[in-house]
């Protein structure tokens, strides 16, 4: 016997959470694009997607975050800090790759300086992940030693029932248990079998790739130029990536007042490493693509002992020229044999 949340009770759960002051967030369609966003009722949720177009990270690390307001007067510069919006949130219907992505980035946002904007939201959010029963050609979590029902980064894991009528509830953390306590009466004990999680074939050998990447000789390999020849240098892969976390601080506004903002930035952009002098140490797109791969599978693991990739496959899925991590690591796998 396991706890079961039946689909028809979900709306009541949403109502319960909301009336308890929680913001309920989940995958929704917004003008032909799917995204995690706040909902008022369960009917808004779109839980049939393989994956939302946009990743979960923007709920914790928005694309543009105001940090402080400044006003310049003759005597002084007045500043007024922005804090992230506070209040408990429940993110219902995350995917394992997205939730894992958050866990991957936690050490990054806290290793030398604790990023309040990230952690306040992390501490106030309950992540309810639904294990995947379907995948597409781009999914690759298994190649990253994760799985469609990985619990990494999640507070609750829901396993869809075979009959599609609800989910088995696995409470993973205290925060998750706490959130589900308030809806305990809406859950039922049952023995409905869970549907099988989808099998995502392994596409590359991440360990072998890591070894190849660590070899300094391969840094200047012709491979980088060839694999990235068609890269057009947009930031779509990095911005949709649940683990890419680079940002830029910009002051924006008029002559006497403005807002300091933390905006996403991307290593794909030529401007990312441009020096004031005009010199650009990563002057070619291949150097930039190499950086992205090196960072995710060599530098980041070197520092935080985990690949900076949770295998969601969005990079390839949305790439205008059908590039992505999968192809690159598949090719590296071949090279490393």
């Amino acid at each position, binding site marked *: 016997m396991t706890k079961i949340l039946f689909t028809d009770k979900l709306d009541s759960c949403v109502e319960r959470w909301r009336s308890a002051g929680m913001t309920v967030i989940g995958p929704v369609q917004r003008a032909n694009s799917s995204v995690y966003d706040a909902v008022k009722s369960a009917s808004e949720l779109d839980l049939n997607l393989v994956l939302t177009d946009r990743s979960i990270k923007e709920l914790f690390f928005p694309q543009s975050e105001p940090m402080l307001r400044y006003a*310049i*007067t*003759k005597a002084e510069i007045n500043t007024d800090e922005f804090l992230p919006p506070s209040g408990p949130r429940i993110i219902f219907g995350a995917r394992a790759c997205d939730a894992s992505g958050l866990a991957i980035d936690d050490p990054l946002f806290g290793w030398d300086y604790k990023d309040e904007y990230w952690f306040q939201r992390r501490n106030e959010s309950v992540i309810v992940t639904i294990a995947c029963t379907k995948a597409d050609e781009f999914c690759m979590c298994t190649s990253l030693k994760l799985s469609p029902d990985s619990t990494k980064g999640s507070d609750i894991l829901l396993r869809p029932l075979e009959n599609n009528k609800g989910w088995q509830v696995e409470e993973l953390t205290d925060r998750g248990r706490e959130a589900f306590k308030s809806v305990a009466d809406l859950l039922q004990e049952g023995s409905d079998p869970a549907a099988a999680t989808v099998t995502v074939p392994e596409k590359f050998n991440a360990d072998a790739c890591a070894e190849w990447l660590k070899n300094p000789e391969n840094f200047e390999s012709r491979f980088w130029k060839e694999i990235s020849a068609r890269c057009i240098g947009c930031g779509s892969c990095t911005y949709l990536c649940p683990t890419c976390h680079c940002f830029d601080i910009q002051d924006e506004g*008029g*002559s*006497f007042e403005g807002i300091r903002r933390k905006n996403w930035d991307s290593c794909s952009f030529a401007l990312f490493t441009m020096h004031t002098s*005009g010199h650009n140490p990563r002057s070619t797109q291949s150097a930039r693509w190499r950086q992205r791969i090196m960072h995710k599978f060599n530098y980041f693991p070197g520092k935080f002992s985990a690949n900076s990739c949770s295998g969601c496959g969005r990079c390839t899925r949305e790439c205008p020229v059908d590039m992505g991590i999968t192809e690159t690591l598949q090719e590296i796998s071949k090279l490393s044999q």
Partner: protein
Amino acid sequence: MSKIGVFICHCGENIAAKVDCTRLASALGDHPGVASSIEYKYFCSDPGQESVKKAIRDNNLTGVVVAACSPRMHEATFRKACAEAGLNPYMCEIANIREQCSWVHNDGEKATDKAIDIVRSMVEKVKRNNTLQPIEVPVTRRALVIGGGIAGIQAALDIANAGQEVVLVEREPSLGGHMAQLSETFPTLDCSQCIMTPRMVEAAQHPKIRLLTYAEIESVDGYIGNFQVKVRLKARYVNKSTCTGCGECITKCPSKKIASEFDCGIGRRTAIYTPFAQAVPNIPVIDKNNCTYFKNGKCKICVKSCPLDCIDFEMQDEFEDLEIGAIVVATGFQVQNNALYGEYGYGKYQDVINGLQFERLASASGPTAGKIQRPSDGKEPETVVFIQCAGSRDPSKGVKYCSKICCMYTAKHAMLYAHKVHGGKSRIFYMDIRAAGKGYDEFTRRAIEEDEAGYLRGRVSKVWLENGKLMVRGVDTLLGKPVEIAADMVVLATAMIAQPDAKEFAKTIGIGYDEYGFFNEAHLKLRPVESSTAGIYLAGACQSPKDIPDSVAQASASAAKVLALFSKEKLEREPVIAVNNESTCAGCWGCVLACPYDAIEKKDIKDRSGKVIKRVASVNPGLCQGCGTCVTFCRSNSIDLAGFTEKQIFAEVMGL
């Protein structure tokens, strides 16, 4: 860190009566980057300027905003004052709180609010101003005078007599223009040709003047001090260098019945011709359209008659490129086509003629040798009706202005008629008699009192032929009665209009023109002889209707302008020009196409080995006039305009 000085001028009461200058000064005093904000009654006065200079020195100001009248008034004044205090003049800007604020608003409170915005926005601009240095460009000391009438000749002679080179271009075969067509000139009645022809000869023989007749301007490129002018030398079909002007060809030419342009159609000329006997140069041209050989391939009588073998039917138009420093435009006027007035019968009745035709009749060298004979039958007219304002001051015919000379020449015509036809009766219909000028009113009085010119105040409604007489029906508004006069000849005082191709010509040389096609001066009162384009000056009736004294005066004035320009080897220009950032320029050449002055060139950027890596736009500071059209076109924001940079404008807008 910016240290801006703000100087708020009361302009007596002009600003202070509406704008609360104390509040303004205090608001700006609190503005970041403002080191000093003071008000004063008249900053343009000597003590006012001194206080600006003192503030610059005392506070080490990095920029100055003078909140006062329009920059069009005193920008130069205050920039000069700044320069005298050691501040780059381009670090000074004017905030216009008079013409565009205190004078136009009733509500003092709101006017003050607006003034604060205006000055604040300008302070933000000045913070981003860059020091600029005037641009020096060399001056080619050679003037081009376009038009060989009295104005052009006068300008050319004045410039040449001061020792500078002149190229004088005339599109007709001879110098002379309209003045050569006149009989006698008011108010002295001296013979036009007698005073004109010596000038023509002087110009033609002047060692500093190069005369190009039967020539037209093809194109003008370049800019003040450095124009490149292409001139088309139309084929005369007569070799200039060998022709002696003996006139044999003209005598022998079988096509003798071509209406003479010079005689306004009253006289006849041949196909090979000089416009008039005293033509300068005295070298004939062949009128291709009327020449039997050109029409039928046969004739060549002129070739046979020429003792020096000067006729060359194969001659082609030639082009000559000239390097020019300054241009005087003296292209003159035309007379309006009187056929516009169907009710006056011009074009229908041979004896209804215009004033210029009357000049030819009265001219001793004209087709009637100075005898007043009516064109239809050569009879001496016993009664002549003159109709003034036949075209001028008539918006319905497109001429709203007064042609200025008609009152005077009609009086003159009446006089000449009285002198030549004893007992002849003249009747002049007029709206007003405008006789302002030295000796002018005395002249019209003389016409009335001594020569019995019969002035009738009123308009003519109709002219028709009845029993061999031209019946003129009009109204005498002083008596309040309609009048009908049986006349033998009617003379219309036709409007002076711009040359029919004036607008096209203005575009070719790059100057402005008004709705009528008269060329625009830079300022009607203060810069009346300069066109809107630097280095191009105006003389004579091409700018507006003028009589001879006015044309000559303006010609001499434009010559003075040219000579002032030629007095220095180099010329200083405002450094408000475009500058390109070659590192970001993508070389799309949009700016090159958009530039009205062809001031943007394509420049190769080479690597060390000399290989071209990329091509970028490069602004020629001599040609650039600073309009900024290129800046707006540039998608990558690579090109910018000094004095109105993107940063400056951005700050101005964001400072509002």
